[in-house]
């Protein structure tokens, strides 16, 4: 994305709380109508960054631009953004209608017009007829929708969401994820979504910024983050990853041939740009890109190991295979319709095999 069509532009932003640096030189561009997620474990600075967009925290240095306007010194109530809080922050002394209409005061609407707008929002969030309910009569999912409606009624340019699904149970959360994505497409405004749940981020987002210790590690589409993580930290944060050490033997036409400890020769075109032969590298493979067989599959791209353990996960199973020379057991994920039988019979020899380009080269020294 070029800087010109960026709708939110975060430029070299730092944030200190006393001596603690919560945000470390973050630069990000978020496009118009994009569903953008900030993903990281707790304390990584994602919520601080979101609160800086909303105006609840000032930037220590750097600048945030929204729709081309610098935001320094602009208080929260003058910013073209609205936020859905983690606790939802429903006003407990107001009913649903007054909660949703809260931000409309300055528009000086007639009562009828105001009620029409609220009813329209209640329709959108699938809670028609809830206008007269009290705040304490609502379930978690309903509060979450009211908080959304309260923000969306003001037609903000950006909606900020601070782990809005964190307090919901699993089934409701999955349902709300779909609804949220659909809602974002319907209203067409930019969503900036904070979460620590990588699955949630992968499901919802157009792009994700993975954060750690106040820095952005990688900003990319869900597919790219999963398939081509830039370093070991991102690779281990998103999904499960098997890491190996290896030495580059040769590079031809962008294909690297690597001698991997315990596996032998691996060929992949997923390499870092300035890779040279003779370098020591960290190379990784996703569990579902490995195939487990009991018979020798023959040919290249295979290695022998011992099946140590298996975890049954319903739709699929994870198999843990130890390979000589590799310290961590290798994880293989397989759909259970092609299940490897004889789970009880562990500690038996098995073969791993993989296709070309299954491996990703992460780091070299």
């Amino acid at each position, binding site marked *: 994305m070029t800087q010109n069509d960026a709708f939110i532009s975060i430029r070299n932003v730092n944030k200190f709380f006393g001596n603690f640096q919560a945000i470390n030189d973050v630069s990000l561009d978020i496009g118009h109508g994009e569903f953008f997620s900030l993903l990281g474990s707790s304390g990584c600075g994602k919520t601080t960054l979101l609160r800086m967009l909303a105006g609840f925290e000032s930037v220590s240095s750097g600048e945030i631009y929204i729709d081309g306007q610098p935001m320094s010194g602009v*208080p929260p109530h003058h910013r073209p953004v609205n*936020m859905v*809080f983690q606790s939802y922050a429903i*006003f407990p002394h107001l009913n649903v209608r007054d909660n949703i209409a809260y*931000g409309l005061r300055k528009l000086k609407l007639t009562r009828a017009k105001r009620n029409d707008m609220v009813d329209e929002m209640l329709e959108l969030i699938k809670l028609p007829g809830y206008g007269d309910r009290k705040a304490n009569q609502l379930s978690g999912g309903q509060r979450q929708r009211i908080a959304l409606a*309260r923000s969306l009624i003001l037609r903000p340019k950006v909606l900020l969401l601070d782990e809005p699904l964190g307090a919901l149970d699993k089934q409701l959360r999955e349902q709300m994820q779909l609804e949220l994505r659909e809602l974002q497409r319907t209203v067409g405004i930019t969503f900036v979504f904070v979460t620590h749940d990588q699955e949630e981020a992968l499901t919802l987002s157009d792009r994700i910024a993975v954060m750690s210790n106040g820095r952005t590690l990688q900003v990319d589409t869900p597919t790219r983050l999963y398939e081509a993580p830039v370093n070991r930290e991102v690779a281990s944060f998103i999904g499960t990853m098997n890491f190996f050490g290896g030495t580059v033997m040769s590079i031809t036409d962008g294909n690297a041939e690597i001698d991997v400890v315990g596996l032998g020769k691996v060929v992949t075109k997923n390499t870092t740009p300035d890779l040279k032969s003779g370098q020591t590298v960290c190379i990784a493979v996703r569990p579902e890109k490995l195939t487990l067989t009991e018979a020798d599959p023959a040919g290249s791209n295979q290695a022998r190991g011992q099946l140590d353990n298996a975890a049954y996960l319903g739709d699929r199973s994870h198999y843990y295979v130890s390979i000589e020379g590799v310290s961590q057991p290798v994880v293989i994920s397989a759909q259970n319709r092609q299940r490897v039988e004889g789970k009880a019979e562990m500690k038996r020899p098995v073969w791993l095999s993989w296709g070309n380009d299954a491996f990703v080269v992460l780091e070299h020294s």
Partner: protein
Amino acid sequence: MSDTYIKRANRPLQFYAVVFLIVLYVPVLFLPLFSFNDSIYVKFPLKGFTFQWYIELLDREPVWESLMNSIKVGVTTSIIATGFGVLAAKAITRYRMPGRGPVVGFIMLPLVVPGIIFGVALLVLVSRMGIPLSLYTVTIGHVIVCLPFAIATLIPRFEGFDKSVEEASADLGENAWWTFWRITFPMVFPGIMASLLLTFTVSFDEFIMAFFLSGADATLPMYIWGQIRFPQAFPSILALASVILLVSFILVFLGQWINRGAQSGSLESK
């Protein structure tokens, strides 16, 4: 439920509670008892039942005057002290302040500094500045005495609700002033009512400050003090004290009842 470990009945503790309440209230209850006694002497055995002293009270012009003075001072004091209390409680609970602990300590100081010291100090100050003693000077003294009560009543209310509710209001386009009136004020309103009632009661019953700082206009406790010297007036004073006792009790009880959800406010907003 009654046999869970925490909720199990505790005999010695119940006994202690009963003794505690008796020691606390029996001396006070002698006042209403003797105020209905048909004798000007406060001694047993009781002579007979009468409303005479209450009726006599109604005919005394100075009682009504001093009552009005006390109400004027009490209402003004409660409004000023609660107003300051709201500002202080908001500042203490909402802003990152250096030296928050000592500040709260200083605000609560009038609770432990003897009233006589504050009274003398204020009297010296007021006379140095050449301000004549009046109900205004009494009010100043009472505001100082009442401020800790107001703040102590209000802080739990402010602490009891989620800070993000105020942020949500700002986020939805309201500035600090409107956020206060539309969110903070309605949510702490029961605390404000309780504070008004409590500080009014404290001011209404206060004697030492009034003793030092009042001029020609006496408050009700001052009037009582002045009448104690006259034996024939004493039963009426008992009657008056009984009325004050009852009204004070009702006001404080009402305040506590209005403010009963102070700590559960956080649950409501979650």
